[in-house]
């Protein structure tokens, strides 16, 4: 039996354990578990994960980065910080879902059970040091998400989104695992560190097999993070899935997939950098520019945010492209800055679209800032943070990624991304201006329940506080990659 470092797998165990516990409680309690109780249990599990990530941090700082379970799971600064970020996003998304569940269109504990299990999958991806473990994490995450997307059975768009997500997601997973199989054939191992050692110590006479494997792995990841041209599923799924699920998806999937992406590409296949860098270059250029331009022509808030998240994926890939310590830190910082903001943005969209979850036209937001100044201002701050305005975390995130790219010799690609950011500014600003438009349309007040209000306040506070004072987050990201084991 391989030795097991239980501290390393504790976050996964907490989330999966709580998920199973909730299932059992639902079956045992007569008349079903109250939403309040199930939400409290999920939030507690998320907070416990956050606390464990702090314990892990001090462990890694004292003992250095380590691997466990036959080197298949890594415990390093990178995984710890990503785990903490994921825990925060999970808690926020759970609170948003609480108010949505209280409307009663979806009853029961399914959301919490699935959300916890899928987050456990994302955590597995974050810590995975073996292609097979990455695949398992990816599947635990994705299968949970397919069901989450189908959760709202009153809207036919929900199940349509689920089927589309399922078909393209499984296609991507099959491509990914075929890539893992070919990489295994080329290097004789699926362990990411072992692949890296093998490639550093050997010259492949026939690198075709490895290149094919690497390319398939890359395509699999590009599908999952919705990079252009593999993004076609994303707007439909974002629009069709219940809005709280969309917010959950936008944050948790990005964290899990990008952490694994970085580990596989930069750490595992780092020696092949000259081969994969041009491919990523094209991906970044297409993703940032097309993501921003397509967002311009959308009239639906959720589709717009889908393209906005595609645009963001482009910047995060830019951090991966840099493939330097600075690039890794920038990628991590971007994820830390982006996750809370996107969950809070979708919290506002959920409230505006409530209760039927149908009214997501951009016209619904006209004059919102005049009717409800606080909610309008909060949404404005969140959108400006996504745009990357100074004094928000979004600014430093974009700056860090671009600086890392320029540092790594990517002046041209940094310039293209910057132009894309200018295009993206149009639709964020158009939305913000609509918030404060004159001639407010006759619309009902948007009800703001307590849990959602808490999430929105938290998102705004995080982006503003760390936007004015980014030092702590930046040093966290930098230290995390110092401890990063190749």
């Amino acid at each position: 039996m391989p030795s097991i470092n239980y501290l390393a797998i504790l976050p996964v165990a907490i989330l999966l354990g709580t998920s199973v516990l909730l299932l059992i409680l639902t079956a045992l309690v007569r008349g079903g578990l109250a939403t309040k109780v199930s939400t409290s249990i999920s939030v507690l599990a998320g907070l416990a994960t956050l606390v464990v990530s702090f314990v892990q941090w001090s462990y890694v700082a004292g003992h250095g980065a380590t691997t466990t379970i036959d080197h298949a799971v890594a415990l390093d600064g990178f995984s710890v910080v990503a785990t903490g970020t994921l825990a925060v996003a999970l808690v926020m998304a759970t609170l948003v879902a609480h108010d949505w569940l209280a409307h009663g269109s979806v009853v029961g504990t399914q959301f919490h059970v699935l959300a916890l299990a899928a987050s456990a999958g994302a955590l597995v991806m974050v810590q995975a040091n073996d292609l097979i473990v990455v695949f398992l994490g990816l599947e635990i995450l994705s299968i949970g998400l397919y069901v989450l997307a189908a959760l709202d059975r009153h809207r036919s768009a929900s199940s349509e989104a689920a089927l589309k997500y399922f078909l393209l997601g499984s296609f991507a997973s099959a491509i990914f695992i075929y890539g893992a199989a070919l990489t295994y054939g080329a290097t004789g191992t699926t362990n990411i560190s072992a692949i890296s050692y093998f490639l550093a110590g050997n010259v492949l006479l026939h690198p075709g097999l490895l290149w094919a494997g690497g390319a398939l792995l890359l395509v699999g990841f590009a599908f999952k993070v919705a990079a252009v041209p593999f993004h076609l599923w994303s707007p439909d799924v974002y629009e069709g899935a219940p809005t709280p699920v969309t917010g959950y998806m936008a944050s948790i999937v990005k964290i899990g997939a990008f952490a694994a992406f970085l580990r596989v590409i930069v750490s595992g296949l780092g020696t092949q950098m000259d081969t994969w860098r041009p491919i990523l270059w094209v991906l970044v250029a297409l993703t940032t520019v097309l993501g921003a331009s397509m967002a311009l022509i959308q009239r639906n808030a959720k589709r717009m945010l889908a393209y906005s998240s595609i645009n963001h994926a482009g910047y995060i890939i830019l951090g991966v492209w840099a493939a330097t310590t600075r690039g890794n830190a920038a990628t991590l910082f971007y994820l830390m800055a982006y996750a809370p903001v996107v969950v809070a943005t979708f919290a506002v969209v959920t409230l505006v679209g409530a209760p039927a979850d149908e009214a997501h036209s951009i016209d619904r937001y006209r004059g919102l800032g005049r009717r409800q100044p606080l909610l309008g201002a909060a949404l404005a701050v969140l959108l400006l943070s996504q745009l990357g305005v100074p004094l928000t975390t979004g600014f430093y995130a974009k700056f860090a990624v671009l600086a890392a790219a320029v540092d790594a010799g990517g002046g041209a690609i940094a310039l293209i991304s910057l132009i894309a950011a200018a295009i993206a500014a149009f639709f964020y600003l158009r939305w913000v201006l609509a918030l404060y438009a004159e001639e407010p349309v006759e619309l009902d007040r948007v009800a703001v329940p307590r849990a959602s209000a808490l999430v929105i306040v938290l998102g705004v506070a995080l982006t503003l506080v760390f936007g004015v004072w980014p030092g702590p987050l930046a040093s966290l990201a930098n230290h995390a990659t110092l401890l990063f084991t190749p």
Partner: protein
Amino acid sequence: MNVPAAWYLVLAAVLFGVGAYGLLTRRSALIMFMCLELMLNAVNLTFVTFSRTMSDIAGQVTVFFVMVVAAAEVTVGLGIVVAIFRRRSTTSVDELSEMKG
């Protein structure tokens, strides 16, 4: 009779290609599921072949994981198809085009 390993790899690649082609061109959700299974089993064949040529057991162990994942995936997929069929009495992907843009 000794069949060279390369033949197995080529067979797996062809199966994977057939599956991918079918998934992208067929319009019935159920046939798309079958194509997905074909792709995953092509991956299994690849793993077993490499495992055999390298005398390394890890590849064969992986096959079990892939099989479990394939089963779980199809379970969820069929559940979604049933949910859609109840609503619309169709499993054709073409008729699911409520969202566009």
